[in-house]
């Protein structure tokens, strides 16, 4: 290199240096520019522009900061930056659905967003600052936003007890129990009941092999081309409990063959009192008499029958017991009589009460069931099967185990197969990467997976043993909501403290009352201290409500006080002794702390008071719009024809003061009655008596005297 050129930079090098410098500066600028153009800043600026178009700009921008906003609640494990973009979330004036997202306000709920965070209910990623990452599943973030249609699942993660505000979740939880999901799966807060499916130890004495074959093939339900579920060919909205298993022809033969041999205790024919069958009531057919008794006893409260009226066929009756339209062609008549006389002898945990039968009634009702509730074509299409061969029996027994029948059905000498399916107690918190979608083309998210699994298990797992369920779309969504609410143990101690647990206390009193209570299965329909069914009134405070004599009469011959009800209390034909035992226990034990009979002075119920009460009832408050007295009035509340014999004065006063305090979900609105008005109305109601009722205790008799005077008034 010549000396004069030393220290000089070539032109080319200069150019390179200049270009790289520019490039370097530009490269350094990338990061600030990206930051300036980031999504959240876009929404920050958009909110300011949006607020300026609103009349209350000043209020909308009062809390505005140009930075990232964050809700931090260490106790709940919440770090939510959602409010960075969702800036109007607490602004009442932005509630209108016309306000564009992400600026719309959150509807006011019991848990305000700023105190509870967003992800606790909505899921998604609280710390993300991009729309996609916050809301959807990405490679780095697994938990997508919960669609608002299933949001009640989040209520259920802490509120394990049912809430009025979450009907969809409650329905889903009820379905989990009703569909016997707990037979194969472990679920949170659903305990395994004593009996899921019927005990099959003696099933061969009850039904024929042909019937078992048909039942296994189409367990009562068939879905037609329009997707309507039918029961024995009749359309219904109820989902049958026994689901459809995918059984092949040979499997049907084997399993039905095996089950038909299960006859450890053959049904003994019952010998009727010689007079019963020979004395047909009023010369008519015993089956007609039986039908009448069947109706009078209100068997339809638990069992439905298909009825065709004006060309449309529908099931009428309750769903606690099986549907009975064709039961006469199903069961062995000897078994039927033995069953009616003592259901618990065949199924120890059956919900069916043990009725008090007279021989004549039993004969007539069984005649009705076996002669009228029949269908000669019930077993049409079933091949003639004959007696099962030893091979069939052996294969059937193996199938019984392979298919997991013993997870729901009890069979003597066969171990129970609980937990056959996967544990679902934390299924709602599963990440997408933990799910196997197989060959299916459904969207890759938990909700689509759960719904595919329920409606068509084979679509996601060709080897699935799970049977097929035909659910309406509402029920499917409800069930999905309930499953999504099962997210396992709470993530933090703060969340654990918030859990409202589900009460699982049972009510099985001892003594004579306990015996009668178990015999007539009162708890299948009635609630006692939040244990029992919900079909009939809660009886926890019945002792404060009803007079003892009325209770005894009602138990002997239940007459509804609500004329519009289709499902009514069955007639148990209980003895005087049993009715007295129940009434005495209810009267002394099942009392409300808010009703104090000693505070009632019966002298205050004067005829003048009653006359004033009548005026209040008919003119000022128009109670007749909902309650019937005599032949006129509304059908919303109970009829009050016999209120004076039925209700205790203390209950009426407490009820008028605040009905919701006694029955929290009653629809009777709470009124602002004055004390005088309450006394007057009570005095009037106590004068209402249906004639011909025997009077009981001294107290009742005393009130009668008072009220009779009232009735003489013009």
């Amino acid at each position, binding site marked *: 290199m010549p000396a004069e050129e030393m220290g000089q930079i070539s032109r080319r090098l200069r150019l*390179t240096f200049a*270009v*790289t410098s520019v*490039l*370097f500066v*530009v*490269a350094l600028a*990338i990061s600030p*520019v*990206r930051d300036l*153009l980031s*999504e959240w800043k*876009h929404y920050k600026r958009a909110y300011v522009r949006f607020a300026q178009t609103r*009349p209350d700009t000043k209020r909308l921008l009062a809390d505005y900061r140009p930075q990232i906003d964050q809700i931090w609640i260490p106790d709940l494990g919440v770090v939510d930056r959602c409010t960075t973009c969702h800036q109007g979330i607490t602004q009442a004036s932005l509630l*209108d*659905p*016309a306000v564009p997202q992400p600026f719309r306000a959150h*509807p*006011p*709920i019991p848990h305000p967003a700023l105190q509870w965070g967003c992800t606790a209910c909505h899921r998604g990623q609280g710390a993300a600052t991009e*729309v*996609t990452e916050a*809301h*959807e599943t990405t490679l780095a973030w697994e938990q997508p936003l919960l*669609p*608002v*249609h299933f*949001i009640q699942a989040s209520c259920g993660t802490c509120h394990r007890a049912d809430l*009025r*505000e979450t*009907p*969809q979740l409650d329905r889903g939880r009820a379905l989990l129990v009703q569909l016997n999901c707990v037979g194969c799966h472990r679920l949170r807060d659903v305990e395994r009941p004593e009996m899921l499916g019927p005990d099959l130890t003696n099933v061969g004495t009850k039904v024929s092999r042909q019937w078992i074959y048909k039942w296994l093939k189409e367990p009562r339900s068939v879905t037609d081309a329009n997707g309507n579920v039918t029961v024995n060919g009749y359309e219904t909205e109820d989902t049958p409990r026994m689901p459809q298993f995918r059984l092949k022809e040979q499997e049907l033969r084997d399993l039905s063959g095996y089950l038909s041999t299960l006859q450890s205790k053959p049904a003994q024919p019952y010998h009727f009192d010689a007079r019963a069958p020979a004395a047909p009531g009023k010369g008519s057919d015993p089956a007609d008499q039986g039908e009448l008794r069947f109706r009078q006893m209100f068997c339809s409260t638990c069992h439905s029958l298909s009825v065709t009226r004006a060309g449309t066929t529908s099931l009428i009756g309750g769903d606690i017991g099986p549907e009975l339209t064709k039961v006469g062609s199903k069961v062995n008549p000897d078994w039927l009589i033995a069953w009616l006389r003592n259901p618990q002898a065949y199924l120890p945990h059956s919900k069916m009460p043990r009725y008090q039968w007279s021989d004549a009634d039993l004969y007539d009702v069984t005649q009705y069931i076996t002669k009228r509730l029949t269908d000669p074509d019930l077993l049409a299409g079933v091949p003639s099967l004959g007696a099962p061969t030893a091979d069939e029996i052996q294969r059937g027994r193996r199938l019984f185990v392979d298919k997991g029948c013993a997870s729901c059905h009890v069979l003597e000498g066969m171990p129970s197969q609980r937990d056959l399916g996967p544990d679902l107690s934390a299924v709602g918190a599963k990440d997408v990467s933990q799910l196997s979608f197989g060959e299916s083309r459904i969207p890759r998210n938990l909700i689509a997976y759960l719904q595919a699994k329920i409606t068509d298990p084979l679509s996601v797992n060709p080897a699935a043993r799970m049977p097929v369920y035909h659910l309406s779309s509402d029920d499917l969504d409800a069930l999905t909501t309930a499953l999504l609410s099962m997210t396992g143990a709470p993530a933090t101690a703060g969340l654990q403290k918030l859990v409202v647990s589900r009460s699982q206390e049972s009510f099985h009193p001892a003594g004579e009352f306990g015996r009668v209570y178990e015999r007539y299965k009162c708890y299948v329909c009635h609630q006692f201290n939040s244990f029992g069914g919900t079909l009939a009134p809660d009886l926890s405070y019945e002792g404060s409500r009803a007079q003892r004599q009325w209770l005894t009469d009602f138990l002997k011959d239940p007459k509804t006080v609500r004329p*519009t*009800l*289709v499902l009514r209390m069955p007639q148990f034909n209980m003895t005087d002794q049993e009715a007295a035992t129940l009434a005495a226990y209810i009267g002394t034990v099942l009392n409300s702390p808010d009703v104090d009979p000693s505070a009632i002075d019966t002298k205050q119920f004067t005829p003048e008071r009653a006359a004033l009460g009548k005026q209040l009832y008919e003119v*000022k*408050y*128009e109670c007749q*719009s*909902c309650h019937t007295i005599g032949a006129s*009035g*509304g*059908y*919303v509340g109970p009829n009050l024809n016999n209120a004076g014999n039925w209700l205790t004065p203390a209950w009426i006063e407490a009820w008028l003061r605040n009905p*919701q305090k006694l029955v929290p*979900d009653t*629809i009777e*609105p*709470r*009124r*602002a009655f004055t004390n005088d008005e309450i006394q007057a109305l009570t005095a009037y109601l106590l004068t209402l008596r249906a004639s011909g009722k025997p009077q009981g205790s001294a107290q009742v008799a005393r009130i009668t005297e008072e009220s009779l005077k009232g009735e003489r008034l013009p």
Partner: protein
Amino acid sequence: MKRCVVLLLLALLVAGFASGCKAKRHAVAADPLRQAYDSEADWNDAQRVIPLTYDQAQGKRIFYLQCVWCHADSTPAGPSNRSNLKPMPVLMNDGTVLNRESDDYLESIIALGGSAVSKSAMMPPYRQTLTQQEIQQVVAYTRAIAQPAYQTPARPEPKYTTR
């Protein structure tokens, strides 16, 4: 070699901008009913399903608990008490009657009862049974199911201006 460096830097630059200016992708368009909190079939046309917001859905729950017995022609328990009453209560979806009444008026008739607004005393007051918020939710539900559809009134002109 230098050209390579230049090209590499250029490529970096482009890549940097490309990731910075990523097009705004949006959540997949889903079924509108799935987006809704709850839904209700139009009373006159079961095929038309109306999506409900949270408030409207709470109103629907309260309606089916308290109001349905007299303000609809069929109830969860079967027959309705409506035809039994004189004057006959208005159907809850009857837009021809309810659309012209303001939210405030409907809220007060529910809270204070029929007699407070010179209507039939058969309509009881719900002030002590339902909260103010619950009453507003019932009104929101009424508006959602109204036939003909309810139009939110335009914002009234302010009476006083700063000018």
